[in-house]
């Protein structure tokens, strides 16, 4: 059965800390892995990863994929209160369907 598992389920950190969010998957016919940030409404797209070992970076956020070990990490450095959100990992398979993890809830306290 295809599945996506995220850890930890929730995390509370202080502003300025660095956090690492994990996503492991078992999905047949893998096409890509995606990260989303969800605040109070629609998930917003962060990264799409298709190749192992190539880091994608956007400001303080970065992500990398390991297709051999079937996982990805999302790093956030120098966290700010605006980073507080649920972070979702999704894996797309070649049938153009997306499997989502349950998310990691991040709270950044001043």
């Amino acid at each position: 059965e295809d599945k996506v598992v995220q850890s930890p389920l929730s995390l509370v950190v202080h502003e300025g800390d660095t956090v690492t969010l994990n996503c492991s998957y078992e999905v047949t016919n893998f096409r890509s892995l995606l990260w989303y940030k969800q605040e109070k409404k629609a998930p917003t797209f962060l990264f799409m990863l298709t190749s192992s070992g190539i880091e994608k970076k956007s400001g303080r956020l970065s992500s990398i994929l390991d297709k051999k070990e079937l996982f990805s990490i999302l790093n956030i450095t120098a966290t700010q209160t605006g980073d507080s959100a649920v972070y979702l990992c999704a894996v797309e398979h070649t049938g153009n369907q997306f499997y989502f993890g349950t998310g990691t809830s991040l709270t950044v306290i001043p």
Partner: protein
Amino acid sequence: DVKVTQSSRYLVKRTGEKVFLECVQDMDHENMFWYRQDPGLGLRLIYFSYDVKMKEKGDIPEGYSVSREKKERFSLILESASTNQTSMYLCASSYRASPLHFGNGTRLTVT
């Protein structure tokens, strides 16, 4: 920027009512999806569509149906709403290998 619009942010319906959730996207995307999001369960796929008049069941289609008469519009129908369908419903669209673009969601409460 892709815009996915869901017609209602909040809905309250009674058990047994027929409920329509509407979703419109403005980027000519072929693929459209309906998910529900529940605490501890994440996003679960209800139905999806790759083209007009085409629909495929997702992981939890029971109690739901869909309609796609035009490319830009994908409707989710609850034939007879039940309390266990109280949830956040998210519509999304995509084009080939692009990421999903989500609407703002409809929080449905069935009493």
